[in-house]
């Protein structure tokens, strides 16, 4: 025990030393540490992992959405020091506090100190921004999640940009937060980490013990209610048909005639004009005679032209399908090149891949036209 701490708390507690008071309720502490862990998972999968880890990143996002919703509600119905109303957000107070830090004698504050309170506001704003922009990006770019029905690709792409900016913002805010915690514990000897774990702080004056167990039950009930409501509404919304993608009834003759030689390309990968040109030039189809009888050509062409890139609002249709190239090849589209530049030529030459136009070798869902990040599966090196 720190000898400097005042022993002025009148009530004696048999379990706990008298000079400490319970400040952080259990729901708040659980929220803090679970959220910290989830943010680490989201950060690692978002910043470092390749695209196909998106599944775990999204799960972390859903967990964050639930935790944040709980925290925002708890900020109004929680115990005294969890409530936003108790946050010392007055700018004058913040100025005084920062000055006291510069003079290296900040006071121990029961609840949050002004800098910590502002830190929490910034962290919460960044996290809410990340969750919302992430959901829009997931719905718009991947046609997945609760917002798939409501968001188009371009909105999703814009949200993706915001998501990245917010992620760097959060990373910076977390760094400042950790620096603040380091300063509090190491320089000013305020055991704030221990307080966030056991919930007790040594107050400078009189502090009110927050309720003991009733609040834990209440917090659990709130959490269950919020999680349940989010789960039900999320699953319901995710069940709606996505705005940018639809399943197609692919004619068998398309699969058998075109799919004999190459991947069964989705109609959304080229424009109607490109498909027409291609079907009119099958006698010299990229260096081979791929001619078909007239009836087969007309069935296949109708299918391709009816479902051309303009009729889909997916990433593949928007960024590759709608871009015309003189060769008609999608591999000549700048976006295709930039998205595949990290892949070594040797990968394309693997027996299991064969060529750059064999989308299905890595995009296991290419035939559907979705090209989900989570469906990317790079082939292992061919066995000798």
């Amino acid at each position, binding site marked *: 025990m720190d000898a400097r701490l005042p022993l002025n708390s009148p009530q004696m507690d048999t379990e706990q030393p008298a000079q400490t008071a319970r400040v952080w309720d259990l729901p708040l502490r659980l929220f803090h540490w679970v959220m910290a862990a989830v943010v680490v998972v989201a950060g690692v999968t978002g910043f470092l992992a390749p695209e196909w880890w998106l599944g775990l990143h999204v799960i972390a996002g859903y967990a964050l959405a639930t935790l944040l919703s709980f925290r925002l509600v708890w900020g109004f119905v929680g115990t005294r020091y969890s409530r936003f109303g108790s946050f010392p957000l007055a700018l004058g107070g913040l100025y005084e506090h920062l000055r006291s830090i510069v003079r290296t004698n900040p006071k121990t504050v029961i609840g949050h100190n002004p800098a910590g309170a502002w830190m929490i506001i910034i962290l919460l704003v960044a996290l809410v921004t990340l969750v919302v922009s992430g959901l829009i990006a997931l719905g718009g770019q991947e046609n997945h999640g609760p917002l798939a029905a409501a968001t188009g690709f371009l909105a999703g792409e814009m949200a993706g940009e915001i998501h990245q900016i917010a992620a760097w913002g959060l990373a910076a805010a977390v760094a400042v937060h950790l620096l603040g915690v380091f300063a509090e514990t190491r320089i000013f000897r305020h055991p704030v980490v221990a307080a966030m774990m056991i919930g007790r702080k040594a107050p400078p004056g009189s502090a009110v013990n927050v309720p003991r167990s009733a609040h834990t039950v209440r917090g659990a009930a709130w959490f269950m209610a919020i999680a349940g409501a989010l789960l039900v509404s999320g699953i319901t919304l995710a069940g709606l048909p996505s705005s940018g993608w639809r399943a197609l009834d692919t004619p068998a003759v398309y699969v058998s005639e075109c799919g*004999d030689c190459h991947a069964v390309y989705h109609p959304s990968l080229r424009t109607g004009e490109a498909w027409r040109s291609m079907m009119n030039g099958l006698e010299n189809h990229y260096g*081979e*005679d791929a001619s078909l009888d007239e009836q087969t050509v007309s069935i296949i062409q109708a299918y391709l032209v009816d479902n051309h890139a303009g009729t889909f609002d997916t990433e593949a249709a928007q960024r590759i399908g709608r871009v015309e190239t003189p060769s008609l090849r999608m591999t000549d589209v700048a976006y295709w090149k930039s998205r595949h530049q990290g892949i070594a030529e040797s990968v394309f030459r693997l027996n299991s891949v*064969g060529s750059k136009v*064999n989308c299905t*070798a890595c995009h296991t869902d290419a035939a559907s036209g979705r090209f989900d990040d989570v469906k990317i599966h790079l082939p292992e090196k061919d066995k000798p």
Partner: protein
Amino acid sequence: MSFFAIARLLIVAAVAGGSAWSANGPANAAMMQDNIERYRVEAKALGQGFEAFSAERGRILFSSSPAAGKPDTPSCTACHTTDPAGVGQTRAGKEIAPMALSRTPDRYIDVKKIEKWFRRNCNSVLGRECTPLEKGDFLTFMASQ
């Protein structure tokens, strides 16, 4: 009983003895012989002294590199591999089932399909249509593999 019917019976009997064949093997082989017979009729009709199809001429056609068609397809073996029993690969990366009848028993049963691939691939590799003699030789070679 015609010569053709006897030949067909013999093949069915020979094939039925093979253990590696699928249940439809004999029927498939017979249908392939129907198609070879069609080319025999066409070859005879040309009146260029046709005697019989030759698996050896078929092998030479399959293995040669005429490089007379499109530059990316100088020979059959460029995609089908030099081994008729081998698994080939299209230039776009798709697997091609072996050409040998023993490995892909249902390959030569559909006239339209056979004609489509002769039309396309003879043009791609040879730069011209194949003659009925070449088609019959080719199928006779693949039937023996």
